[in-house]
């Protein structure tokens, strides 16, 4: 019972986003409150004044007045709806593009745990340590069903899908420990798929990071997989089989067979591994098999990280 006394009526605003969401939330709450209150007061007045047998005046209303009322509140409601949409939705919806300097954390969800991995390879389970006031970008995927990464203190939520990567960007602004929940129903232990987000000062974070046992970094893991799947047999600079060379390809424009040009971003690289025939590079025959069913989502992520890290090669004569 002591725990019950522990309840809170407010939620920390632990990210920049949280403040904006709260402003929107409480503004809409105020607007709704005024509407509800007006309605209840009107109801009460009418109920008392026009109760059966009261002496209030009761004749019919002129038609024009009714029409004025209808048009009045119809247009007022439309105006209010558009206003709320424009004010709270219009500006704040597009997620900012990735930019350098973001702390890129890879998140893999599976029944029923969260696995997180820091850029230098430090790994955590059901936990994530973050430095305060540092922009963070979460790159997330799932190994089985749909999960959802939900941190109430950040007012952020994003579904985590199998074979598809979703992202979340935010900047923690408050020190402390916050709940991480899985918000998309994912099976028997859905409610136990929770974790903790710990926001530390930047120096604490650096110290914490040093003390972690370092597994292979994502790039190193990717290198191993590159060898395991024998990607080099075709893609290595020395290979005699015709395949696009990968060194320095990340971020470059690639000409496709269809005549289109696409930028080799993460999504492109991922697609090229899981579904090579989706975008065939100009001048190459589509001989690469799909690795979509062979490599797990986290392995694909590691491969992408490795390919991005490959240096640009010398032009072959």
């Amino acid at each position: 019972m002591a725990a019950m006394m522990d309840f809170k009526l407010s939620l920390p605003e632990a990210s920049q986003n949280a403040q904006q969401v709260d402003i929107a939330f409480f503004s809409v709450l105020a607007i709704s409150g005024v509407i509800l209150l007006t309605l209840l007061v009107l109801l009460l007045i009418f109920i008392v004044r026009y109760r059966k047998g009261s002496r209030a005046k009761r004749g019919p209303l002129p038609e024009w007045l009714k029409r004025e009322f209808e048009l009045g509140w119809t247009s007022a409601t439309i105006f209010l709806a558009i206003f709320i949409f424009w004010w709270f939705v219009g500006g704040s919806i597009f997620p900012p593009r990735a930019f350098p300097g973001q702390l890129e954390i890879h998140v893999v969800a599976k029944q029923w745990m969260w696995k997180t991995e820091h850029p230098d390879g430090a790994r955590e389970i059901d936990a994530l340590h973050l430095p305060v006031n540092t922009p963070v970008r979460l790159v997330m995927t799932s190994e089985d069903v749909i999960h959802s990464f939900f941190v109430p203190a950040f007012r952020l939520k994003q579904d985590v899908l199998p074979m598809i990567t979703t992202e979340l960007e935010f900047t923690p602004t408050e020190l402390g420990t916050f709940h991480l929940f899985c918000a998309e129903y994912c099976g028997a232990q859905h409610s136990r798929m929770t974790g903790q987000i710990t926001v530390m000062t930047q120096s604490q974070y650096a110290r914490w990071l040093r003390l972690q046992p370092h597994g292979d970094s994502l790039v190193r893991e990717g290198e191993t997989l590159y060898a395991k799947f024998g990607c080099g047999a075709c893609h290595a600079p020395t290979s005699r089989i015709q395949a696009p060379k990968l060194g320095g390809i990340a971020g470059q424009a690639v000409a496709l067979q269809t005549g289109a040009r696409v930028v080799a971003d993460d999504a492109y690289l991922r697609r090229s591994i899981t579904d090579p025939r989706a975008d065939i590079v100009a001048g190459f025959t589509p001989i690469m098999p799909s690795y979509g069913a062979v490599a797990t989502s986290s392995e694909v992520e590691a491969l992408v990280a490795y390919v991005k890290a490959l240096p640009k090669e010398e032009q072959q004569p």
Partner: protein
Amino acid sequence: MSDSAYLRPPWKNLERQHQAVTLGIWAFLGSEVLLFAGLFAGYSVYRGLHPAGFLAAGRETSIVFGTVNTAILMTSSLTMAMAGRTAKARLFHAARILLFATFALGLLFLVLKGFEYREDIHKHLIPGPGFPISVEGAALFFSFYWVMTGIHATHVTGGLVAVLRLIVTSRNDTAWLAGSGSQEATALYWHLVDMIWIILYPLLYLAGRTHG
């Protein structure tokens, strides 16, 4: 001889009963169209995501069966429409012959579809182990192929039962064909099933024919 013998409760007026039956069947057809809408949407999304797979898979369906079956179903629609026209002209004997033809053509469609399925199974065109086309998305094409043709065949079967009912009921009472709204209702349903097939035909049989 009076058609008012075909009034059913709660109707008092045959013309109004016909109007209601026709409107009801049109509303139901609207529902049927939306039933296939989900399949069309799924097909379109996946064709957009995996164009190569859909083209590679589209080549493997049997264009001969597909085209012949389209022609058969369109012809059955013709005989059905003619049956309505002749029944209205009170040429009930001719109308019944045309209904027989409709039934036979519908049955022929299903028989040919069965042979086509046998050929498909023979070529292992069922997504799963042993599926011969390795391009990503080809298996999705065949998932939709089986579900679309399967649901359509169910509708043809339902239509055949309805046509059979017309034939059986009009055996001793040929004027029933004009008097009750059943012939028109059945015809509208039959034409819709034909129409759906007309849309399915290019999706399932004409994709990817230009290559290989």
